[in-house]
């Protein structure tokens, strides 16, 4: 994949430049921005988006899409909260149950996409409604006020987002660890190679005996698991379990993935790119806040960033040195993305 890497490294270089430019511009507007401590702690805000996009990249590389991440955050949060507070489970077990929830949601999505052949866009759309619905039901049935949520978590739990190790906030460490895992998994294992091959040409993957369906389903499980990790971190950060956590995160997640160089039609992308893009997107939000700009410009900015990056990538790919991709089947794609 050397030529591929060489090309993508160019894209990642663009992202790094973008990042540097961002830091420079925002630092100019508000010098506090350049304070390392401030920067590090700002990560808390967008670490969730970054964590999920790391593994959503796997899904998109196989040619699918997963917009249910935000709902899984909320569901996980509520599961942990309810199990701990109402059912009396200890916080560690409750947290693991939360993780299991994410994996199960992912398996649910993945099964429908891979084995039942339903379009990814629709499955995760329905899944999004379903999971957020389950979160609401859980809250309602357990008698918790939806508005207040569940709070008062034990200190150990609060440390997840609140604590730090040698001056680096825990969420950053968590992100770094997951970044390493995703990187190794996607680029250095047989599994990762299969993910790419399935995305490049699902038919040829089938003829090579690569087990296309289980590969596809597993990517959704990873994505779901990542969402539940993000959910636990977010719950710890806010100190409360609420069913609507993560509700508005679909847009930033997709933006981070697309901006990070992952092709929506599948087969291309790197974890490094997505990670840098996640930081770019997150810093955009944080920097705008520091610059005193209303937070609503952030959504506008993210939306424009998504559209522009998709357009630029599309054009760049067409005039790039890369030869035309052959193959690249249409089997498992997000609805509406089939003309990408």
């Amino acid at each position, binding site marked *: 994949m050397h030529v591929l890497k060489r090309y993508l490294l160019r894209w990642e270089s663009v992202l790094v430049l973008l990042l540097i430019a961002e830091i420079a511009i925002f630092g100019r507007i508000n010098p506090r921005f350049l304070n390392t401590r401030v920067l590090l702690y700002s990560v808390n805000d967008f670490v969730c988006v970054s964590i999920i996009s790391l593994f959503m990249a796997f899904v998109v590389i196989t040619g699918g*899409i997963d917009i249910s991440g935000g709902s899984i955050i909320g569901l996980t949060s509520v599961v942990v909260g309810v199990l701990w507070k109402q059912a009396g489970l200890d916080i560690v077990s409750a947290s693991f149950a939360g993780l299991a929830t994410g994996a199960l949601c992912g398996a649910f999505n993945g099964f*429908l996409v891979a084995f*039942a*052949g*339903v*379009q990814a*866009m*629709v*499955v995760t*759309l*329905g*899944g*999004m*409604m*379903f*999971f*957020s*619905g*389950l979160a*609401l*039901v859980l*809250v*309602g*049935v357990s008698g918790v006020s*939806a508005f207040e949520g569940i709070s008062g978590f034990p200190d150990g739990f609060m440390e997840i987002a609140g604590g730090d190790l040698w001056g680096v906030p825990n969420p950053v460490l968590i992100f770094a660890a997951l970044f390493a895992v995703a990187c190794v998994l996607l680029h250095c294992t047989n599994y990762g190679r299969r993910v790419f091959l399935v995305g490049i040409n699902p038919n040829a993957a089938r003829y090579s005996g690569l087990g296309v369906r289980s590969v596809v389903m597993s990517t959704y499980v990873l994505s779901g698991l990542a969402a539940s990790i993000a959910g636990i971190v977010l719950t710890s950060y806010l100190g409360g379990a609420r069913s609507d956590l993560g509700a508005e995160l*679909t*847009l930033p997640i*997709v*933006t981070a993935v*697309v901006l990070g160089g992952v092709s*929506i*039609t599948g087969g291309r992308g790197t974890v490094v790119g997505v990670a840098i893009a996640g930081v770019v997107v997150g810093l955009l939000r944080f920097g705008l806040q520091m610059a005193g700009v*209303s937070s*609503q*410009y*952030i*959504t*506008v*900015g*993210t*939306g*424009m960033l*998504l*559209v522009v990056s*998709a*357009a630029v990538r*599309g*054009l760049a790919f067409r005039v790039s040195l890369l030869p035309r991709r052959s193959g690249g089947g249409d089997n498992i794609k*997000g*609805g*509406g*993305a*089939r*003309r*990408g």
Partner: protein
Amino acid sequence: MLPSFRMKREFNALLFAVLLFVGIGSVNPVFLTVRNIALTLQGSVMYIFLAAGMTFVILTGDIDVSVGAVLGMSAAVAATLVRDGYPLWAVVGGALLVGGGTGLLNGVGVTFLRIPAIVMTLGTMGILRGAMFIYTDGKWVENLPDFFKQACQICVYGINLFVLAAVVVVFLMQLYLTTARRGKYFAAVGDNLDGAVLVGVPVVRIRIAAFVVSGLCSALAGLVYTSQIGFVGNVAGNGTEMTAIAACVIGGVSLAGGTGSVAGALFGAVIMNTINSALVFLKVPAYWNNTISGLLLLTMVLADSLLHRYLEEKARRKRLNARFARAAERRACDDARA
């Protein structure tokens, strides 16, 4: 020339809607009072417009998740204009401009820039949501003139004006899509793109037109929303895009493109909205709403997909086996001749 119900799906959707009403009514008869049915229908109007517009886009094989944001933005624009005393034509025009403009932008992005529809409309959704906030300065748009707020209560021969308008618009759309020459082009593009090119359909123009229609319909939905609710809050329209897509799917519009009708979408919209209020009447806590809607959507889509695959495989096998029938018949013919 009447739209025929030969498509089983629309009929199923209508049947489901009727059964839904009857079912809920049997548990709680209050639901079936004329007044309540009327209220339910009025509440569905917004979703009817959204789903009808969305149908055009899905028919051509694309998708549009920006409809909720368009609704919100056009509602904000309309509310602001009407509050500030602009004439009605300007108010409606402003809303339609927002919708049509967004649709055009989406269409161009998807066709000329080759951005996948999901990405493009997700982007415009973000842009419009933020733009709406900025436009309203984060404040609710209130103090709308009475005539506007009461427009949703005007009755024509006893039928609510908005409901009537929705039905008429959907009827005209259905007529157009099924009988007009160019109306068929939308489904053709989604049904078989190569076939459409072969017979000379202007594919690019049709796809852009679909997005524009979707945008305009979302704007209409925004106007309805503003009049019915009486003010425009910050999160107007949020989440309605998902309901619109679900309504279409339930109404028989296949996400693969080429199949479906606005009539079905209308029934789907009524069903989706009814589930909301139904829960109240069934004394089911409102928090079940999303779960039920999500499950309904997933079930319909799963059934649709499995059926589709089964039929395709069956056709393929039939085609391959035609060889033997041919050989056998030839042998029979030769024997007969001998």
